[in-house]
Structure formats: structure tokens, C-alpha cells
């Protein structure tokens, strides 16, 4: 039951962010879908007890792969599908806690939260970059194998 609620709210929140960023109208639904996939992976992994940093990495990795596939299908820049999807992963809570502790003069605790927020941001970015490189390899391999197939067919 809980997971169905999470599915629905993650769709609406991502689509709302997509409206703010003014994505092309016909991709609004797909942007929401990318957000749902990313959030559900993050949610399930953290519920199973995985660390937030690792979960952010895997989630943004999948987001970038789905976004890449959509970008090829719609012939649009990939960034359209990524941006709304990764917003829920941004460590707003951690940054907030860091700020609160600094204001309360507890600098050590604040630094700890701040460092964690920094790590999560790094994990999100690594996920995006790894997925992008992987997809480049995959599509290059597909293209070259297709070319080989065509050559052998001609013979």
C-alpha cells in the first residue's frame, strides 16, 4: 500500500518539477515516469537498509539509462529527461540538517551532515556519468555489429 502511494506522489512531484523547467509538453508524462523509476529504486534500496549514498548512485544510474533511451526515441537532448528525475535524489534534507546544526553552533555535527550531502551529490553525478559512458559503448557495439552483419550478408 505504502509503495503505491510512493509511486503516485513521485510521479506528480517529478511532473510538477518538469512543468517548472518547461519541458516540451508531449514529454511531460515520460519525465514523470523517469522520476517514478528513479524514486522507487531509491526507496526500495533504502528500505532494505542500503546506505543513502549507494542508493543514490544506483538510482541515478538507472535514471540516466532510461533517459538515454527516451532521448534516442524522441530525438531530443537527454538533459530533458534527466533533470526532473534526479531532483528527488538531491540531498535537501542533509543540507538542511547541516544548516540547522551550524546555526545551533554545533559545527561538528553540521560538518558531518554537510559532508554526507556532498557525498550524495557525488554519487548522483557518478551514476549519471557511468551510465552515459556505458550507453555509448553499448550503442557503438550495436552499430558496429550491425555493420558487420550487413557486410557478411552482401558477400
Amino acid at each position, binding site marked *: 500500500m505504502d509503495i503505491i*502511494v*510512493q509511486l503516485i*506522489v*513521485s510521479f*506528480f*512531484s*517529478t*511532473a*510538477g*518539477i518538469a*512543468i*517548472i*523547467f*518547461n*519541458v*516540451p*509538453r508531449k514529454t511531460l508524462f515520460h519525465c514523470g515516469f523517469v522520476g517514478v523509476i528513479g*524514486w522507487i529504486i531509491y*526507496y526500495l534500496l533504502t528500505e532494505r537498509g542500503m546506505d543513502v549514498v549507494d542508493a543514490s548512485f544506483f538510482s541515478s544510474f538507472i535514471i540516466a539509462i532510461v533517459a538515454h533511451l527516451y532521448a534516442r526515441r524522441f*530525438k*531530443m*537532448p537527454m*538533459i*530533458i529527461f*534527466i*533533470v*526532473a528525475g*534526479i*531532483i*528527488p535524489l*538531491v540531498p*535537501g*534534507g542533509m*543540507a*538542511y*540538517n547541516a*544548516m*540547522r546544526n*551550524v*546555526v*545551533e553552533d554545533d559545527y561538528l555535527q553540521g560538518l558531518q551532515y554537510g559532508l554526507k550531502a556532498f557525498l550524495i*551529490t557525488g554519487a548522483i*553525478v557518478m551514476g*549519471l*556519468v557511468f551510465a552515459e559512458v556505458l550507453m555509448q559503448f553499448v550503442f557503438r557495439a550495436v552499430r558496429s555489429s550491425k555493420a558487420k552483419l550487413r557486410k557478411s550478408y552482401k558477400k
Partner: protein
Amino acid sequence: MQSHEADNELTIDCLLLAGRIMIESGAETYRVEDTMLRMAQSQNMLDAQCYATPTGIIFSLGKTQPTRITSISSRVTDLQKISLVNSVSRRLTSHIISLEDAYDELKSIQKTNYFLPIYIQVFAAALASGCFLIMFKGGWSDFPAAFIAGGFGFLTLILINHLTKVKFFSEFTASLIVGSIAFFAVKFNYGTELDKIIISSVMPLVPGILITNAVRDLMAGHFMSGMAKGAEAFLTAFAIGSAIAVILSF
């Protein structure tokens, strides 16, 4: 010879306009350079050079031709414009449309405002804030508070952006509004968890596209643009954080 040079002028105008629109709408710098060079090559400018940063573009044709510069002062996030320019450049490079048509189309893209009406954007921001509250494990009883705080925060951001060019100020005020709405909601018993209400209502203000672009530019080897965008993202985050700190210190 004369007409040939005039042709070049039109092509360079067209390229610079395309690059300008893309940067003003928040595209990655390496993609802007890539698009401009592809368009140039389709117009038989084989040794064209292009250098784009978030604040300006330099484009040169080679030894004999003059180099052109366009400077860019303001940037927003408008993914629709990016995709429209992308489609124009795709059609130009595969010679489906002519250079003149592409230039006209780009000019109309630059003039048009593709954003949805403000009330729809504010509603979207408000709905997103409410949904974020549920995603961050808040209770449904706090939903109205987050909805209102997120909506008013985003409305403030838009209104003050119209009044002043200083982005730092508008972001600071917007999150100040978010924080005070959340604070008073909790004080008068319309909400329970101040932390979760603030975190979720601030989400529409988070510079997501800047962070993504900064890193993708850095990874593509465009260190200048990457660092510049990173600085812009840091400023935004700092504005939000300091406003929240003001609220929390009460």
C-alpha cells in the same frame, strides 16, 4: 565574392543566434559548441572554431574572416527552447530546411515565450512540494502547509525575478517566505514537523539543472564553464541555506 561574404554573414548570424538561445535556456556548454560546429560543417565551413562559455560565445571562421562574439547576460531554465533549437539544427544539418528558413525559425523561437501561465507553474510547484513531503515520510496532515509554502515560495521567486536581475536576492526572499510560512503553520498548529515542511517546500527552488550541467561540462573537459556553473549553483544553494538559517535562528 561580395555575395559569398554576405552568405557567410547570414550563416554566422544564424549559428550565433542558435548558440545564444541554447545558452540562455540553460543547455550544457559542450552541447552548444557541438551543435554550432555541426551546423557550420553542414554550411561548408569546415575549419570553423567555436568557444562557448555561460556568459558569451566566440566564433571564428579562420584566418581571413573576422571573429564574432556574442555576450550573454541572463540565463533561465527553459528545456522546450533547447529542444526546439535542437530540432532546427537537426533539420538544417540534414538539409531538410534552408539557411534562411532556419534563421527565421530561430528568430521566432527567441521571441516567443514558451512558459505556461504563472498560475499553472505555481500550482505545479505547490503540488510538487506537497508530494515531496509524502516522499520524505511526512504525514498527510502536513500536506496543506507544504502545498501553500511551496506555492508561495515559487510565486515570490517569479515576482522578484521580474523586479530585479539579482538572482541571489530573489532566491533568498523566496526561501525566507517558505521558511516563515512553515514556521507560522507549525506555531498555529496547522502542521507538525517544521523540518519536513521546509525541506519539501524548498525543493522547487533547488538548482538541479545547474548542478547536472556543471558536472557534465566538467566531465566533457570544459573546465571554465563547469566551474562557472558550479559557482552559480553554489550561490543558489547558499541563498536558500542562509534564508533557512535566518528562520531557524528565531
